[in-house]
């Protein structure tokens, strides 16, 4: 199985990349439809495990320790496969 981890800035922390991209989309004619843009990163981890619960617990530890900086970032984990 694998874990798909999405990491992004917390709500309330200004996302300058999202803001700049939002502005660019506005100028490209998508102003009406675009409400907000947030930019994050996706980390895909292939796992040697078939136990979803164990996998989620381990990946949570990875997020807390390294993958996200919880001072400014949130993360969510999807276990697939």
């Amino acid at each position: 199985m694998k874990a798909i981890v999405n990491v992004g800035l917390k709500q309330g922390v200004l996302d300058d990349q999202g803001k700049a991209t939002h502005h660019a989309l506005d100028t490209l004619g998508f102003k009406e439809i675009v409400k907000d843009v947030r930019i994050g990163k996706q980390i895909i981890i292939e796992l040697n495990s078939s136990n979803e619960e164990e996998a989620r617990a381990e990946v949570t530890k990875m997020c807390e320790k390294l993958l996200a900086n919880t001072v400014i970032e949130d993360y969510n984990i999807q276990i697939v496969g």
Partner: protein
Amino acid sequence: MKISVLQFPGTNCEYDTKYAFEKLGCDVEVIWHKEKKIPSDTDLLVIPGGFSYGDYLRSGAIARFANVMESVQEYAAKGGKVLGICNGFQILLEAGLLPGAMKRNDSLHFISKYHTLKVINTDNTFLSLTKKDEVLNIPVAHHDGNYYIDAEGLKELEKNNQILLKYCDKNGNLVNMNGSVSNIAGICNKEKNVFGLMPHPERAIEEILGSTDGVNMLKGFLQ
């Protein structure tokens, strides 16, 4: 005075830092990140600038787990003096030795130029030879120098005189160069033995470099 300067893959200011402190008469040793211990006679540990581990994941995020960092944590906990410059500051934030975090500059540009800084607090070793409100001209060179701390954390920094430097114009009026909360360019911990700043004082030590304002900053550690 013995100064240990850390070196990670991607560090690029270790020899500038060595040069600057040697010029001030210090004995300087560059320490590879795989070392388990920093030299026991270290009077000041410097984490210099650069792009440790290519800035992959986040600036400083991988360096903080290097072998040598455990020894740095112990050294700092015992009151040893630590100075993080640029990437070194980012590493200290990731390691939890200083509060807050770094984001990409709000302009999204890498900023490399001389910038003026205002001295905010001088009741610490680092800035003890500078004067409060003095304006220093020091180069900056970073992509991720947009300092973030929440409102509560900022109050703590202010209350404990932990804010060292803020970005300002030539006349000392504060300016926001990169999006940093409260225009912050450098801070220290509550105990005032761990210091971090984005600008590079080691690059402002000779007239030919354009400024010598960095000399009095680095000299603060030599007393």
